[in-house]
């Protein structure tokens, strides 16, 4: 068998296994349980599953492609990924249990119905759902294209890019429509095992094979590529310390309200599973150093990669040095790194629309219909991303530039709103509008970073200022509900009492 046939066969077997595993996850649960079972796994996942799922969804195809590509092009700035994830898990220690308890208490399944509940306005949930979908679609496309180039590369070209794009869509849709978050968690198990094994292997093998050992590899980097080893990195990157600090800070805050992260939070069986995950998830970040360093190793082995090709820095090393079966297994790990996050992205879009947008149509309001509507939207969203990948790839690439910074603008409305009763509807909405406007204005005029600072953080500051100003300038919202009905608190520590006199026991 040719190398292409071997790698392709291994890949095919694992893809069938992936769909089977995803579908097996809900065996014996026979479609019962409605939207919450599908969207957030019936809020029943234990600490280990949550770890696997959240590690699975945060380490995307970027870990294999973008991290190595950034390492190759710039060097040190890529470490912002590790910085924001670690800081984000620390923020998640506080925010995760709070959101979990709020959703459980009020039967909510995502950030859009949390916002609708907090402000008592279903239409606001729908608006946020549409906005969040615009920010999320590019990520689905990034996963589709990411998986496409990986599959095409590891099959030594025997699977064309266009077929590989379609495969990414088909495999993911194949299980997520039926098995939802639980299926994603099961597939994550396979993914994490393969990712840990393959990255661990590459971390040892590549330096030995190409440089004779770690010492020799690192000595060469220090001697020949010092520009890559500190901020702002190689070339005229513009990614200096101010950018690194502001981006890490903004992303650390944003990641905890990112709809896919929240889906993971809400899937937990109890709050302590989330707190313990805040301890164990940062440990996974150590693995991210591998593709970053290997990207720099590729500088010596395959110099002169430019543009999109630099994203393949890691795979150029792999296909060059390893037998076909090993290339196939590494390709599967990278493909699953696209599939799991893509599944959760699609699931979240489906959930937001089923719960917060389509439910406004009276005929679709009932629980079973919300679930059916959500599943339909999953297929539509996936198809839309696939069509855009073929027809207008640059549209979504442009949108992806504002995705994270745009999502960050929901922070005051959601998080501040959940702990501070006075924040008014008008204040939150004006802040969001101004914030998103500022992000678009800065990014699309080429002003990100602006004066070396992440444009999203600047926009968030403006957003917060406007939200506070409008809130204080106008009378408080009239809402008869009690604080405990509207605000979120930490389960297990905060105490809700029925009077103002004494604290009750938890």
């Amino acid at each position: 068998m040719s190398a292409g046939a071997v790698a392709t066969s291994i890949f095919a077997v694992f893809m069938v296994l992936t769909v089977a595993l995803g579908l097996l996850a809900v065996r014996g649960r026979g479609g019962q349980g409605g939207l919450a079972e599908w969207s957030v796994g019936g809020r029943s996942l234990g600490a280990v599953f949550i770890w696997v799922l959240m590690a699975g969804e945060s380490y995307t195809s970027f870990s294999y492609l973008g991290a190595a590509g950034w390492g190759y092009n710039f060097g040190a700035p890529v470490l912002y990924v590790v910085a924001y994830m670690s800081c984000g898990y620390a923020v998640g220690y506080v925010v995760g249990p709070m959101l979990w308890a709020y959703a459980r208490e009020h039967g909510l399944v995502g950030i859009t119905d949390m916002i609708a509940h907090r402000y008592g306005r279903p239409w606001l949930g729908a608006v946020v759902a549409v906005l969040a979908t615009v920010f999320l679609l590019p990520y689905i496309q990034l996963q589709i294209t990411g998986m496409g180039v990986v599959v095409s590369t590891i099959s030594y070209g025997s699977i064309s890019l266009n077929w590989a794009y379609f495969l990414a869509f088909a495999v993911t849709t194949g299980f997520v429509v039926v098995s939802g978050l639980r299926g994603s968690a099961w597939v994550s198990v396979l993914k994490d095992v393969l990712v840990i094994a393959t990255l661990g292997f590459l971390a040892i093998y590549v330096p030995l094979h190409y440089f004779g050992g770690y010492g020799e590899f690192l000595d060469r980097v220090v001697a020949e590529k010092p520009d890559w080893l500190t901020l702002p990195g190689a070339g005229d990157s513009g990614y200096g310390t101010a950018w690194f600090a502001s981006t890490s800070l903004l992303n650390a805050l944003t990641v905890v309200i990112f709809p896919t992260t929240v889906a993971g939070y809400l899937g937990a069986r109890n709050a302590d599973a989330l707190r313990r995950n805040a301890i164990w998830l940062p440990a996974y970040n150590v693995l991210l150093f591998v593709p970053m360093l290997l990207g720099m190793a590729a500088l010596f082995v395959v110099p002169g990669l430019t543009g999109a090709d630099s994203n393949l820095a890691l795979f150029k090393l792999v296909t060059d040095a390893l037998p076909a079966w090993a290339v196939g297994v590494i390709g599967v790990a990278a493909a699953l790194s696209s599939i799991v996050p893509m599944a959760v992205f699609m699931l979240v879009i489906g959930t937001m629309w089923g719960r917060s947008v389509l439910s406004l149509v009276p005929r679709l309001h009932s629980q079973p219909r919300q679930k059916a509507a959500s599943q339909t939207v999953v297929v539509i969203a996936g198809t839309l991303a696939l069509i855009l990948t073929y027809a207008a790839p640059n549209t979504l690439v442009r949108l992806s530039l504002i995705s994270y910074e745009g999502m960050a603008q929901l922070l005051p409305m959601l998080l501040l709103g959940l702990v501070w009763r006075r924040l008014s509807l008008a204040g939150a909405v004006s802040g969001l509008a101004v914030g998103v406007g500022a992000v678009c204005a800065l990014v699309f005029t080429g002003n990100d970073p602006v004066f070396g600072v992440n444009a999203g953080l600047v926009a968030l500051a403006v957003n917060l200022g406007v939200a506070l100003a409008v809130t204080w300038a106008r009378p408080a919202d009239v809402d008869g509900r009690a604080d405990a009905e509207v605000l979120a608190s930490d389960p297990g520590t905060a105490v809700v009492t029925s009077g103002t006199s004494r604290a009750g026991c938890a």
Partner: protein
Amino acid sequence: MAVIRRPRRPHLLWLLVPFVLYIGALPFVNRVEPVVLGLPFFFAWMLAATVLTPVAAYLTWRGDLKARAGR
């Protein structure tokens, strides 16, 4: 009216550790020398921060555990 009482949780300050290590320390650690075990200093620092973050989260968790036990 139902009222939410938020108890003091001073141990949450441990969660600032990653922010100090990754962001606060940047101006002082953005350098190649000294090389630590072959790793350039900036990378070695970031790796150390990555290993220490779970420790900080553990100390927070333990603080919460003690607070709950004491209540």
